[in-house]
Structure formats: C-alpha cells, structure tokens
C-alpha cells in the first residue's frame, strides 16, 4: 500500500503543472493548428487568413495574433473560443512581428514596402512607419523595451532602432539573408540567423559589434542544406535552439561557449520554434513534412511528430 501511495505521488509530481496551448500557422492550408502540450495532440484546427505566417500570443494569453501575409493584415483571435475578433491594419505583406511587454504595441516587418509598422493594437492605429532595409524580416525588441531590431533580407543588415523615437541607432552587417533576431534574456546580446549565409551572428547590444559568428558544420550535411532560420533561447540564457531549414535539424547551441551540443533530426524544412514556458518541450514547425516535431528539452530528443496542416511555418506557445 505504501509503495502504491509513493507511486501515486510520483505520478502526480511527474505530470506537468499545467497544459499549454501551441499554435501553429499553416502557410498553405490557411489554417491554425492548436496542440495541447499535455496530451501532445491536435485539439483544434481553425481557419485563418491567406498565408498565415508570424504568430504570437498576448502576455495574458487571451489573444492570438497572426500575420495573414496575403491579406495585408494581422488577425486577432480569442484564444478561449478561437473566434476571429478583428483584423488589424498592418502594412503590406506582414511576416514577423515583435510585441512589447504590455502587449499593446506590435512591431511588424512588412516585406513589400521596406518599412516596420508600429501598431497600437488597442486603438488599431499605426503609431509609426519606420523605413528600414529592403525586405524586412526578423523583428526583436530588447527585454527592457528600449531597442527595436529589424533584419532586412536583401540589405543583409540588422537595424537597431530606438523604440521611443523610432530613429535608427545603428546598422550591423551580417551574413546573407538574415531571417530572425532574438535578444538574450539580459538584453546584452542579439542573435541573428542568416539563412543563405548559413551562420548565426551574435552581436553585442552595447557597441553593436559582432562577438561571434557561429557556423554549423554538421557532419554529413552540405553547406547549402544548412539554412538557419527560427531560434529560441532558454530563460537562463544558456541554451539556444536554431532551426536549420532544409537540413531538417535543430542545432542546440551553448550560448556561453558557442559550441554546438547536438543536431537533432526533426521534420522536413524546419522553420520556426516555440518553447513551452516551463521549458519542458520545444515545438518545431516543419514546412515540407507538414508536421510539428516535439523535442524533450531535458533529454534533447525528438519524441513525437504531430501532423499539422499544409506547410507549417510559425509556432507560438500560450504563456499560461
């Protein structure tokens, strides 16, 4: 009996404190797949606008924002009902966006007009249009909210922008076709992935100098297969996951030594990544195998493939 009770306690302890919801945008199916992080199954598939790409959940978990790239708008869903509440006016062809901590401002990269649109989501009003390089893509906001970064695919730069005045602070030249940018949790460094260059540049936020350029010489892969795109960082700032596109692998990088600890085989054409807030799982959106791979973060192992819609691209986790 005692043993049974112990086993029961162990069971309760082992089960996660809460289940999160994972939202995946399917670029060609024009849908959003909703996954339960506890059962690791699809709970819902919701119709979205044309070509849904970048996706984020509001800080309170109540709203889901999705770039409907071919409709030039950001769709807002109620996460409780998954009903479309409204479509916000963004600039043309929105792809990725960042959000401030309060959740009332979106910073949207508009691929077609070389601008970053700053949108007040409460008033549905454009606060500013900031001219940047050609084909803006990645967007990141520093943890203190003071610096905005945009990467431009054609100009091959990370543009540092003052988030209050929207004046350009600096430009940092990185390798070809920068796709994604993320700040370290302490805000001291910015990581930028270059899809065609095949590298990740780690930039000092203070003096905007490249501290390290990470290459991915994975054994057995050709350089053209290695195309770094989406990234996620653990809260302690020690580990960064980098999606390598058509290499079908996620690189696990030690953020202190910049060594690559592992290349995990996931689905085909891996685009973006999402960590559950408890950092138990990493979800990867796989554009060609039309599925989501679940990685057990502690074991650094792919444990499951969950079928999604056609061409999954973006993925985000609920905060609660």
């Amino acid at each position, binding site marked *: 009996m005692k043993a049974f009770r112990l086993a029961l306690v162990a069971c309760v302890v082992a089960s996660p404190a809460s289940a999160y919801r994972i939202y995946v945008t399917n670029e060609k199916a024009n849908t959003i797949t909703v996954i339960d992080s506890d059962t690791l199954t699809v709970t819902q598939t919701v119709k979205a606008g044309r070509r849904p790409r970048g996706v984020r959940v509001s800080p309170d978990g109540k709203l889901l924002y999705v770039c409907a790239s071919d409709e030039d708008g950001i769709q807002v869903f109620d996460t409780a009902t998954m009903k479309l509440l409204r479509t916000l006016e963004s600039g043309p062809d929105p792809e990725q966006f960042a959000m401030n901590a309060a959740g009332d401002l979106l910073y949207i990269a508009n691929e077609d007009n070389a601008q970053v649109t700053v949108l007040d989501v409460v008033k549905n009003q454009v606060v500013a249009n900031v001219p940047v390089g050609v084909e803006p893509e990645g967007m990141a906001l520093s943890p203190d909210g003071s610096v905005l970064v945009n990467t431009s695919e054609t100009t091959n730069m990370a543009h540092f922008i003052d988030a209050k005045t929207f004046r350009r602070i600096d430009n940092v030249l990185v390798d070809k076709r920068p796709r994604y940018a993320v700040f370290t949790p302490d805000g001291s460094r910015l990581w930028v992935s270059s899809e065609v260059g095949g590298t990740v540049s780690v930039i000092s936020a203070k003096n905007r100098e490249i501290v390290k350029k990470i290459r991915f010489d994975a054994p057995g892969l050709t350089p053209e297969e290695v195309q770094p795109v989406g990234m996620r960082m653990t809260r302690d700032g020690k580990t960064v996951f980098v999606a390598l596109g058509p290499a*079908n692998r996620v690189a696990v990088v030690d953020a202190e030594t910049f060594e690559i600890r592992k290349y995990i085989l996931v689905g085909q054409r891996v685009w973006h990544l999402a960590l559950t807030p408890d950092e138990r799982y990493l979800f990867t959106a796989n554009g060609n195998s039309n599925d989501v791979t679940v990685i057990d973060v502690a074991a650094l192992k792919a444990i499951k493939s969950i079928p999604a819609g056609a061409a999954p691209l973006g993925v985000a986790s609920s905060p609660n």
Partner: protein
Amino acid sequence: MRGFRAHKVALMLRSLRSRRLEARGRPTRLSALLLLAFATPALAGGPPPADEDWPCPQRRAGAISRAAIWAGPAAESRWDDDREAAALARKLASRRTPLDEADALIEAFAKQAGADKDKRLTLVFEGTLDLINGERDKVMSAIARYARGQKALAAKVREDAEKAADAQEGQGDITAPDALEQAHPDLKWDKRIFDDRAQTLTYVCESPVLLEKRAFALARVLQEKL
C-alpha cells in the same frame, strides 16, 4: 516566383495581341515590345539566378544528404549485396508504390530480418536514398534542359518577331485579327509552345521537391522500426 514571371511573359504576349491597333504603322514599336518581352531572360526574375539554366524558385541543391534525413547508424556494407534489402529499396524508391503502403512493407521486412534487423534496415535506407537521388538527378537535368529549350525558343520568337516587324514595315494593314500571326505561322506556334511550357513550370519544379519529401518520409518510417 520565377515560374510566375514566365507566366507573366506569356500574359504580356497575349496583351500584345490586343495592342495590335497601337502597332499600326509603328512596326518598330511592336518589335521593340516583343523584344522587351523576351529580352529579360524569359525564365528569370526575382533575385539574379545563380544558375542561368535553373528556372525554379526552389534553390538548385545537390543530392539529398544522408544526415538531412537519417539519424540511424551508418551502413556497414553495400546495400545491393543484400538482395532482399535491395528489392525492398527498389520497391520503396519507385513512385509507383504508394507511400501509405511503405509502412506495411517495411514492417514485414523488419519481422523476418533476423538478428541483423537494424543493419539490414540501414541497408534498405541506403538503397532507397541512392535510388531516389539517382532519379532526382535525372529530373534536375531534365529541368535544366527544359530551361535551355525555353531560352532558345525565346530567342527564336524574338528573332521571328523582328523579321515580321521588318517585313511589315510600310506594308498593308496588320490590324485585322491575328494578321501578324497568320502572316507568320512559325511565330504563332513558337509563342504557343512557349506559353504552354511556361504554364507547366510550377509543376515541373515541384518534382524534385516531391522526391525529397518521399525520401524523408521513407527514412522516417525506416527509423521508427530500428
């Protein structure tokens, strides 16, 4: 996007026909317009192509790497030395075998593979990848040939159009429907072939991708049985 551009060229040609009126008495302008339509490398567009003979929006990539689809062990012998493994590899690689039958075929093989199951499944994987890479290579060469053919055709249409415009200069009325094309049947046919081919480009470009997807899906099922 390049496929789309090629289609656009075809559309431009069509709109040229409706602009025949404008061309009246201005054969040089007609010729210039046709030249313009075909002067841009007919199949190019977007960022400058790294490879002139590659018409697809997808990057031209070499053979599918083992490491991009396989996390299992490396093969210890040649796959075609194991006859059963080779036979299964051939069956799996063939596009005539529906993908949803692959699981049962692999399962059956794994069951009777004996103690060397993992080694033999690895050989099946090696064989499947080799065969699909071989087919993919052929498809890619065919696409490059197709692109060269389109380029040559574009040059010919351009030349014919110039000749047609020259011949028309100072002569009769070309505003009657299809007068230009009737007077120059070659031009009409070449344009039609060009249009048709341009429209199938998207489909053609998808075939290497479909092979990559097939190789990945098969590797995944094989790995699950290890």
